[in-house]
Every structure is written in structure tokens, then in C-alpha cells.
């Protein structure tokens, strides 16, 4: 219980942090010239695909949690590995997106769009990375048999964080990609 409450509080304060970043992003995005730049440089299709990987990693982690509760250790290991793989694919996807943008001379110092985009998605990516590190530690410990018998709360707590990272991406993706895209196709 204590661990879960702790993680919930941490997630709450992290949420406030992302709110500040997202609000700054939205505020700048309302300034003239921002939206067109955004629409020009971002590719919603490829991002949607690697976002799907991140969202499904939430599902796989949830499966891992349920299997742990039922004591099915082999399945637990499988789902954990799958989660790790999906998260990694997302990070690689984001990496390629960054590389493409940098090649197009969009960087954190090139324009206000670059500044806001890289900061917001960068901080999210950092959180995904932290999540992956934690999950890989947990996975390693699982393979070493640390959780075979105990009624550990570790999967529940890590899960809260991992789902949170996903939800943040849901917001980031909607604001950075989907809304401008909708705006473009409706006007």
C-alpha cells in the first residue's frame, strides 16, 4: 500500500510537471506561424505507428501484472520481455523522428516550434527511458527468481508509473500531432 501511494504521489507531481510543459507548448502553438511549421515538419502516420507500440506496451504490462498475481511466472516473464521490446521500439521510433527533423534543420535552437517540440517530447522520452530501465531491472530480478514466492507490490507500483507515461504520451500525441492534423484537414 505505502509503495503504491508513494508512486501515485510521484506520478501526481510528475503530472504537474508535464502540465507546465504542455501548457507552455500550447501557449506557443497559438502564436502565428507555429501551426504551419508544425504541420510541415511532423509526420503523423509514422508517429501513430510507434505510438501504437507504446500504448500496447501498457496492455502487455497489465497482462504481466495479472499473471504475476496468479503466480504464472513463465507468462509473466514473457509479457515483461514483450513490454520491454515494445517500449524500445517506441524509443527507436522517436529517435528516427528526431534524426529526420535534425536533418531538416529543425532543432531545439532553430525556432520556437523546435524548442517546444524537442523539450516536450524529449522529457517524455526521458521518462520512457527511465521506465524501461526500471522494467529491465524488474525483469532481471524476475529471471533471477526474486519474486517467485513473495507477494511483492513491485509490479503494481511500476505499472502505475508505466501507464502514466503512456497517458502522458496520449496527451502529447493529441496536442502535438492529432489536433494540428485535424485542423489542417478541416480547413
Amino acid at each position: 500500500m505505502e509503495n503504491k501511494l508513494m508512486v501515485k504521489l510521484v506520478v501526481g507531481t510528475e503530472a504537474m510537471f508535464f502540465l507546465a510543459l504542455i501548457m507552455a507548448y500550447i501557449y506557443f502553438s497559438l502564436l502565428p506561424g507555429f501551426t504551419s511549421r508544425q504541420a510541415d515538419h511532423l509526420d503523423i502516420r509514422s508517429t501513430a505507428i510507434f505510438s501504437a507500440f507504446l500504448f500496447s506496451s501498457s496492455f502487455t504490462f497489465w497482462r504481466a501484472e495479472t499473471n504475476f498475481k496468479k503466480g504464472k511466472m513463465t507468462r509473466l516473464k514473457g509479457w515483461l520481455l514483450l513490454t520491454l521490446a515494445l517500449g524500445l521500439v517506441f524509443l527507436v521510433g522517436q529517435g528516427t523522428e528526431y534524426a529526420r527533423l535534425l536533418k531538416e534543420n529543425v532543432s531545439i535552437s532553430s525556432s520556437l516550434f523546435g524548442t517546444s517540440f524537442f523539450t516536450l517530447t524529449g522529457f517524455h522520452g526521458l521518462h520512457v527511458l527511465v521506465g524501461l530501465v526500471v522494467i529491465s531491472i524488474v525483469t532481471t530480478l524476475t529471471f533471477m527468481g526474486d519474486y517467485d514466492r513473495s507477494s511483492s507490490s513491485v509490479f503494481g507500483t511500476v505499472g502505475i508509473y508505466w501507464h502514466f507515461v503512456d497517458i502522458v504520451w496520449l496527451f502529447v500525441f493529441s496536442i502535438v500531432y492529432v489536433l494540428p492534423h485535424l485542423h489542417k484537414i478541416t480547413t
Partner: protein
Amino acid sequence: MKSLFYQWHADPLIILMVMTLIYLHYRKSGTSTIKSRFCFWSAIGLVLITTCSPLHFLGMHVYFSAHMVNHVILLLIAGPLLVMSIGTKPSAPMFKKISLFLHKRSWPAWLTAVIIMWCWHIPFLFDRSFAGMSGFTLMPLVHAGSMLLAGILFSWPLVGPFPELHIHPLSGIIYLATACISCSLLGLLITFAPIHTYQYYLETGAAMNGMRSNPWSLTPAADQQAAGLVMWVPCCFVYMAGCLYLLRRWFASQEPNFGRDASISLSTLMTNHE
């Protein structure tokens, strides 16, 4: 140019909605007391004011800020009043079911209300919503109805008809405070958004100089700021008053002492505490 006070307007679908509410109130809700009748008729009055009265006209054609006042009234005052008007022990099983569901999980109510509120204020959806408002369309009903629904859902876990199925007052404070944050953010955004973000009132504003009246001679910029601030500051006062009310209710209650197992935690926001 007619005086503002003659700008009454009755949308048939809205009238139908109000009729339905009255029907539901008399057929389905619980024991009627003076308090519940008072709540109900105030709520109906507020719904009519926001959808048919000159205030509605002002919000539709002149002032962004008046439009926001309408939103706030529907969401934060009319909605909760309707919930409070149900009275204790309503006969219809629907009420019990809703209460039970929201007692177990109050976050869907929170989320629905917040999503509804935000969606109506996304700039291009906002501008588009006005297109469907004139003439006989579903839009006025969807607009007012969804706000009212959001208000009802949001306040249900706090002031619903079954006191034993309310969420814990301290969880309620977190429930309200987080909603307050979301509301503030929206208000903040509208207040500080560049003037061309919301096109509709700029266009009516341009037309306003010649044709329509601008009774308080607000500039479009001041009007937009006032709109955001209405969503931000008075709204937060409402939420805060709610928090203090819950706190008072908690201090007044004679709940049994409980130890650490049943302590209040954030998790009560997500799930009910045992």
C-alpha cells in the same frame, strides 16, 4: 435594434429537455422536500436563463465572457443542483445503480466532465460549434445538454442521492482540487491566448461595431480575458467552497475511528476505500 431585454429565444429541443427533466423529477426522484424542490426549480431556472434568456443571446452574439458565464452556470451550478434535487431514497433503481457505479469508480465521472469541458473550448471546435447554433439543429441541445450532463456526473459522487455512497470527504477534496486545476488551466489558456485564437467573437465583434450593441463597450481583448478569467477564478471559488463544505461535513460527521488500514489515500480517488 431591439433592446437586449427582448432577446428571448426558445429552442424547441431545449424546451423538450426541460420537459423531460420535469417529468423525471416528478415521476422518478425520491421524497420531495422543500430543499429538493428548491434545488430543482433553481436548476430549471438556471437552465432556462442560460439557454433562452438575453444572457444566452449575449453569449451567442456579443460576448465571449457571457458565453463562459453560461458554461460555468450549467456545469458548476445547475448540474449539482439537479443532483441535489433528487432527494433521498429515489424509487427508480437507475439512481442506485449510478450511485453504486460512481461510488466504486469516481474517476470516470471526473474525466467525462473534464473532457466535455475541454472539448468545447478547443479553438477550432469552439468556432465551429457556433455554426450549428442558429436555426433548428441538434447543436443547442448537444451544447447545453452535454454541459449539464457533465455537471450532473461530476457532482454525483459528492452530493448524489445516497449519502452512504458518497466518496470520502477527503478524497472529495482531491477530486475537486484536481478538477479545479484542470479548470484553471483552461481559463489560463483562454485568458492568455492571442486574440486571434478564437475567431468567432472577433468576427461578431467586427460586425458589432456597426450593427449590434456592445452594452458594456468591452474590447475584444478584454472580453476574451474576462471569458478566461470567468472560467478560472470564480470557478475555482466554487470548487474551493465545495472543498470547505466537504471538510465541514467531515468534521461534523461521527464516523468511527479508523486506523491506518482505512486511511485516506489518493487511491480512494481511483477506487473506493474499504
